[in-house]
């Protein structure tokens, strides 16, 4: 405090204040890390560390009780010859591809609902309703809907003289049946994303396009959709994540059956590691690692894209 305080605020940073503490000199660089620290700590503890543990565990044979025995890559070798694993993998691909139908379906419904009619809010809420209810309930409702003896689907099919189809008992149809059930709430989710997106569409551009004679498909494709890009991007992200996470519907509707034909990787992992007859922790971890690597490809794509967009914006 020997030097007198400046009469006017000193807007120039002290250039070579050797006496200043480490903190003062690096404040700008350190502050963001301080803000990040709690989140980084939690992320490391609950995300990074378990991922590392899973990698490690996948090299062991362990039933969760006794001694874990190191067996190298044997779990992966077994995966390589495991039919159930390929079934799950294939089903995951099916989920990924077919689940994306929720995006155009959501867009279509959103455009349909984006008008000023009396009571439109009620219609919007009705369409949004499936997203609010629990996945378990969705699964149960669709299980009843598909039921071969009293389900609505077969009653309707009966009107057209079509025989009863037991969708969930047929190994060729069951996965499609579950995906259809999953599309119901997912479409509602995409619809909400697009409805908010449509609110942000610039009316002046539409006006301009209209003056230029654009309408219908051309209007949608060249004017509306480009403005909906952020909504499409988010819809894409949540739908793919939703598809890869598909677990609850499989568990509720078929329990992986008939004879394992509707398993997906997440469900198979749960089955071998944690279900009633499971407790093969190492094998489950190996499946988890594969699922993680698949997601990693997608997450990398997502992060790169986001990074580019941020820089461009």
């Amino acid at each position, binding site marked *: 405090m020997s030097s007198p305080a400046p009469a006017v605020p000193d807007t120039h940073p002290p250039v070579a204040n050797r006496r200043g503490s480490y903190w003062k000199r690096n404040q700008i660089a350190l502050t963001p890390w301080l803000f990040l620290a709690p989140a980084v700590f939690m992320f490391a503890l609950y995300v990074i560390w378990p991922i590392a543990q899973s990698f490690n565990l996948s090299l062991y044979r362990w039933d969760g009780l006794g001694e874990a025995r190191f067996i190298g890559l044997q779990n992966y070798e077994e995966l390589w010859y495991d039919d159930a694993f390929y079934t799950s993998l294939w089903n995951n691909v099916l989920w990924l591809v077919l689940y994306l139908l929720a995006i155009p379906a959501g867009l279509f419904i959103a455009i349909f609902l984006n008008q000023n009619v009396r009571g439109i809010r009620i219609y919007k809420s009705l369409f949004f309703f499936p997203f609010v209810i629990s996945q378990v309930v969705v699964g149960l409702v669709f299980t009843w809907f598909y039921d071969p003896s009293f389900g609505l689907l077969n009653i309707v099919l009966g009107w057209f003289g079509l025989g*009863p189809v037991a969708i969930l008992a047929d190994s060729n149809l069951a996965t499609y049946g579950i995906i259809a059930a999953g599309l119901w709430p997912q479409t509602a989710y995409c619809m909400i994303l697009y409805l908010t997106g449509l609110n942000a569409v610039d009316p002046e551009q539409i006006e301009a396009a209209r003056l230029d004679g654009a309408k219908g498909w051309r209007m949608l494709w060249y004017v509306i959709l480009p403005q909906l890009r952020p909504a499409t991007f988010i819809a894409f992200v949540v739908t793919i994540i939703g598809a890869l996470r598909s677990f609850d519907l499989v568990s509720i509707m078929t329990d992986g059956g*008939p004879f394992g034909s509707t398993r997906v990787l997440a469900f198979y992992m749960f089955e071998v590691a944690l279900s009633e007859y499971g407790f093969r922790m190492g094998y489950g971890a190996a499946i988890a690692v594969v699922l993680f690597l698949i997601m990693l490809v997608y997450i990398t794509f997502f992060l790169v894209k986001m990074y580019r967009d941020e820089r461009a914006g």
Partner: protein
Amino acid sequence: MSTLSKSLIAVAASAVMAVSAQAQSLSGDLRIFLDTSNPAPRATMEEMIARFGEMHPDLNIETNVIDREAYKTQIRNFLTANAPDVATWYAGNRMLPFVEAGLFEDVSDLWDDEMSTNLASTKPSMTIDGAQWGVPYTYYQWGVYYREDIFNELGLEEPETWDEFLAIVDTLNENGVTPVTIGTKFLWTAGGWFDYLNLRTNGYEFHMDLTNGEIPWTDERVVATFENWRTLIDRDTFIDNHAAYSWQEALPFMVNGEAAMYLMGNFAVAPLREAGLSDDQLGFFQFPAIVDGIPMAEDAPTDTFHIPAQAQNKEAAREFLRFVATPENQTIINGGDALGQLPVHAEASVDDDKFLNEGFEMLSNAYALAQFFDRDAPAEVAAAAMEGFQQFMVQPDQLDNILERLERVRQRVHGG
């Protein structure tokens, strides 16, 4: 004073002393974990524990009832950390992982001559490595429950041989009734059919060797079992789309008279009665013989009490297990208004119920008792096999693939 009354007094005095000695010695806390989460079993167990508590007033008993399905995964946690003093579980191979991991207490000292004699029927399934690891409190029969009124209408009688059974299947089909209902969504129901077909085709010893992993699944005797199963499938014995139903969801077919038979455990009787079937409409018969000369063994899953190795109050826990095994207690808890099952103790009496009586008689004369497929076979094999059974029932042509797959699992589990 006559010698008789003298000795009576002596006996009474020693009994009083024994009781008071026990009452004094048992103190502290006794924590009991139960998986009997359904209302009736839950009430039964709580009442039983209350009776035990009255005998030992100084003992502070804490009971924790856990949902039956959740219990199956939680037990692995609570046995390793924060173990109770007593826990319910199942006999047979289902307790093997816990015994091998040193999590169950060896209770061979409880199995003295008296207990070994009275609980002889289940002793083998409580024994691993020559020691006993728990005490059974109830078991129940498996067999074929059927619509007696439909049988009577069509002039059918309970079958004793395979040919008679097949004839019934044909008659029922001709009259538009599906012979057998089953729901294989949760797989284990198909395990019941495999158990019985294999027990009747190849016998108890073979079945046990197979579930213990000593026989390859590709063995031709196993194939013979599946051929018998195939006979049933080709004759349209089972309801369509059974893979879509749980065992409860398959009950209405029988209740509505669309299907006539159901291979099940005795626990199916209660829901069938609740659905409105009277005892005149409902009958029970032993699974018929298939190959002549093979002694009849039955499935009779046994539920048990165990002491975790890390229990705090093992003395009280042992006393509780002794109490559970007494004939008086087993009579009470297995009564029709309680568990509605069969007591294991030879001197306990069976509640006067049509199905319990029939089951008791059948099991008393049984050559041997199996626990049920998923309790006899190691978990990994059980899961893969029961899935294979379900697939076989839908796609019988896939048998070779299924058996090869099972053989691979067996070799991995048993280090073949």
